[in-house]
């Protein structure tokens, strides 16, 4: 090797060690800087934090604010300087490592190498053995892969494998079919009018006379019973637990109960729930295939008729100062949710999947529930708030008509009969609105008198009946809007009156059912007692009444009104 090449080699060797040392020192410095940055994050400095606290307590201290800003700026500058140092150091490190590699290769290139002598081929006596070994090893590896692959299925037994929550493909039941049950708050369409003409008129809850069964409801609630086929659905709950119950209509046996636990989207917020409203005020709804329930916590759940969860959503805790109480309603397989609060929405969800079909923003509050009625020409979804009553196309959510005729805190839901929608609340006189057969609706008349605070009115073709918290019942002419008759009872009404055949059923807070003729004259039919307080609206099914008392659920089949 020439002297010149030797000196090159020495230079390369020295440069290699120098670049190694440079890179190693840089690497150590970078690690140290990173640790320092993590340990002493400038923005989390105690001095800055204490100044922020002090500034919160002394919002008018301008000097402190200026000092805080200066320190904050300094901290941010320090942070960005650290980032710059780390990034620049990283680039230098890559340069150092690359240089080291280059010098390594250069050294190998310059190093004197003697051409090796040709070597005799190694004996290949093991060639066959190697071939055989490779075959065996490959086969073992293949079997091992198959075994591991097959075994993996046992190690990833997740929930997906066992869950059968694909939405039912059965078609939705028609409204006509659904009206033969009591599928929502105030029955079919939410109008309070039963499909059946007959209902019991005499019973005694204390002696169990005329009572088919009486069963305690595990948790309290102001929601009303919903009946479909041979099942009664009802909700109950408190701050800790919300539940959906299913009872047998035949014998009152609790068939299943489903505890609702839907993780909240927004953490930390608690619902505002008035003690009178409670945690189970909204009534469930049933579309004949599934049952839906909502709670003041924003939890919305869909269960199949066996109590298995189909889907659930947490709509977020509503900012509603009495607590959410609007009930659910379904139509043709679609679930309608009136979710009134500060950022309220009226939503249409696909019943099978919970998928949002449409939603309308609502900027007003109410505690009333929607009704869904056929006006003869079309289906309308009518909702009310503290300013207006509005009607929407249930399929598209488009606004059909609206009237600014409401004020106050709206609890009663709209009533409907023969093309006329009636809305009212305490301090807001009754408005009778003719649903349009043509382009626009119009208010037929207003009526002022004893007005309900919570109980919804109920209407026939000729009369409107209003039961109030003060204990009065008024009958108003549907044609003229004049008072037809007026009756003062001893106890107020929170539960909404319902109609079966030609009889009105209005149960007062003491649990006495006021049954009277739905006609132009007040004619008493009966005053049977439940035996306990009641604020829930009864369900009427073909000669049967299902009533929720304060603690118990009753199925009544006493003498009928036919």
């Amino acid at each position: 090797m020439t002297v010149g090449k030797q000196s090159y080699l020495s230079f390369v060797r020295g440069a290699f060690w120098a670049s190694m040392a440079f890179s190693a020192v840089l690497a150590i410095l970078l690690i140290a800087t990173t640790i320092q940055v993590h340990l002493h994050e400038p923005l989390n400095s105690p001095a800055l934090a204490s100044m922020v606290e002090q500034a919160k307590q002394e919002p008018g201290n301008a000097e402190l604010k200026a000092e805080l800003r200066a320190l904050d700026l300094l901290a941010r500058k320090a942070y960005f300087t650290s980032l710059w140092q780390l990034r620049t150091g990283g680039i230098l490190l890559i340069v150092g490592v690359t240089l080291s590699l280059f010098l390594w290769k250069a050294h190998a290139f310059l190093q004197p190498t003697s051409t090796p002598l040709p070597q005799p081929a190694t004996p290949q006596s093991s060639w066959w053995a190697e071939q055989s070994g490779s075959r065996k090893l490959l086969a073992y590896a293949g079997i091992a892969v198959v075994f591991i692959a097959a075994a993996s299925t046992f190690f990833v037994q997740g929930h997906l494998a066992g869950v059968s929550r694909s939405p039912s493909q059965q078609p939705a039941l028609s409204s006509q079919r659904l009206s033969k049950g009591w599928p929502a708050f105030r029955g079919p369409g939410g109008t309070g009018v039963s499909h059946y003409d007959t209902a019991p008129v005499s019973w005694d809850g204390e002696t169990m006379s005329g009572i088919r069964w009486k069963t305690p409801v595990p948790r309290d609630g102001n929601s009303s019973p919903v009946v479909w086929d041979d099942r009664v659905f009802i909700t109950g709950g408190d701050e800790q637990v919300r539940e959906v119950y299913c009872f047998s209509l035949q014998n009152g046996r609790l068939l299943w109960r489903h505890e609702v636990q839907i993780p909240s989207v927004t953490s930390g917020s608690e619902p505002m729930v008035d003690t009178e409203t409670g945690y189970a005020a909204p009534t469930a709804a049933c579309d004949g295939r599934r049952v839906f329930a909502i709670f003041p916590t924003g939890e919305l759940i869909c269960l199949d008729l066996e109590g298995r969860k189909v889907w659930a959503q947490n709509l977020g805790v509503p900012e509603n100062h009495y607590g959410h109480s609007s009930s659910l309603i379904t139509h043709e397989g679609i679930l309608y949710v009136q979710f009134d609060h500060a950022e309220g929405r009226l939503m249409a969800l696909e019943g099978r999947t919970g998928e949002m079909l449409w939603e309308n923003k609502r900027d007003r509050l109410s505690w009333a529930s929607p009704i869904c009625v056929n006006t003869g020409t079309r289906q309308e979804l009518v909702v009310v708030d503290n300013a207006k009553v509005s009607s929407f196309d249930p399929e598209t959510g488009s606004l059909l008509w609206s009237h600014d005729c409401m004020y106050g805190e709206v609890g009663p839901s709209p009533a409907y009969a023969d093309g006329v929608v009636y809305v009212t609340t305490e301090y807001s006189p009754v408005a009778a609105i003719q649903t349009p057969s043509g382009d626009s609706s119009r208010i037929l008349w207003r009526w002022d008198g004893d007005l309900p605070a919570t109980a919804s009115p109920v209407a026939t073709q000729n009369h409107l009946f209003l039961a109030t918290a003060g204990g009065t019942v008024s009958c108003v002419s549907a044609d003229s809007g004049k008072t037809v008759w007026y009756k003062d009872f001893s106890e107020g009404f929170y539960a909404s009156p319902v109609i079966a055949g030609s009889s009105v059923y209005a149960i007062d807070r003491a649990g006495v059912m006021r049954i009277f003729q739905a006609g132009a004259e007040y004619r008493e039919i009966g005053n049977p007692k439940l035996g306990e307080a009641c604020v829930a609206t009864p369900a009427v099914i073909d000669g049967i009444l299902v009533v929720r008392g304060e603690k118990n659920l009753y199925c009544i089949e006493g003498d009928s009104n036919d």
Partner: protein
Amino acid sequence: MCRSSLAIPFGMFIVIALGALSNVVAVNRFPRPEFQGGYEQPPTVFPAARPELFGYMDIAVLAGALCLAAWLALKKRSRKGVFLLTVGAVAYFGFFRKGCICPVGSIQNVSLALFDSSFALPIAVGLIFGLPLVFSLFFGRVFCSSVCPLGAIQDLFVLNPVKVPRLMSSVLGLLPHLYLGAAILFVATGAGFVVCRFDPFVGFFRLNAPVGMIFWGGGLLLLGMFVARPYCRFLCPLGVLLGWSSLLSRRHVTITPDTCINCRLCEDACPFDAIRVPTDPGQAQEPRSRSVRRVLLHSALLPLWMLLGGLGGYFAGDALSLAHHRVRLAERILDEEAGGSDNVSLESRTFRAGTVPVPSLVQQAQAIRKTTKKGSALLGIYLGLVIGLGILRFSLQRKRTEYTADTQHCLSCGRCFQACPQEHRRLANISKKGTE
């Protein structure tokens, strides 16, 4: 400076350096200020799309580099030239073009175009995928030799390579097939681009990567000092396709320019164990009938391997489907609903805040799982075929009289002919003619 004695401390140093580097790239982002009172967040600014011209420039550079690589390896037979091209590939395709899009990852783009009719494959991506294959079909794996940035960066780290035992490499050789199949499967099911997600070196090229990726790539480079180019040999999915086309190549790198003198120097020089050694003429031959029986037996077993692979793949579908984020999310939400998790994850919380209900997610996840199971059964059949054919290959008796390049696995790096005495003699003759 003894190479072997220095290799270990040098490797340790690289690890420390990578550790430091990972800290650099993994440093926390600047915390978002908690603005209050009227401050409006500025709109998100997205960088402008890269001009189309640059895409065509990449293709031109790639084509030029492939031509140059083929010329250097096959015509010029210059190891130095190949090495310099390797450095150039790291600089251009690696650090300048940030390692994207690379032909290895483009397998997924092509697969997506095949499985998703709504995805139109850009011409540039198609060419980036196709050019290396076409060149491989004519000249062998010249793309791997010095053009691929992933291979090139590993090649620079080859310091003290050791031979991988043949038995081990025969099993490890299954991994690229598995990776290729999994990459296509995950694209077909929508699980994502797994090759890109686990690209080991893109983090270095971009100077920003998750810590895991830095350690993954760093580990491979460290390993690559002793086991040359481990990613290329035991993982690269494109290597499978290039190997197949290289098998059919019209021309391929030859070790010796003349008659092989069986000196064995090339075998030692090749760090990739891609040289076929001559069979020993003195070795006792196996009776032909026995060989034929074995070949027939393993040929008959091929369908069994495919069936076994298909079954294993089908059962592995449950696990493989978890690669899809919708399946993982559905499992997580169901687990939360079943009370299996104490906390609600950010993903499930975000999902619940949307308008898609859980049953739809569950239904979607179940459909994805079903598709994945079908796909993984096909993947299993393919792997079974690979295993069966591998066993069959080891059952064949071939006679060789000289050292030749394994056209399927040879990376055309030129180390073998650099070590060949016949090559040295040729170069000496050329030099002598030049001086005359």
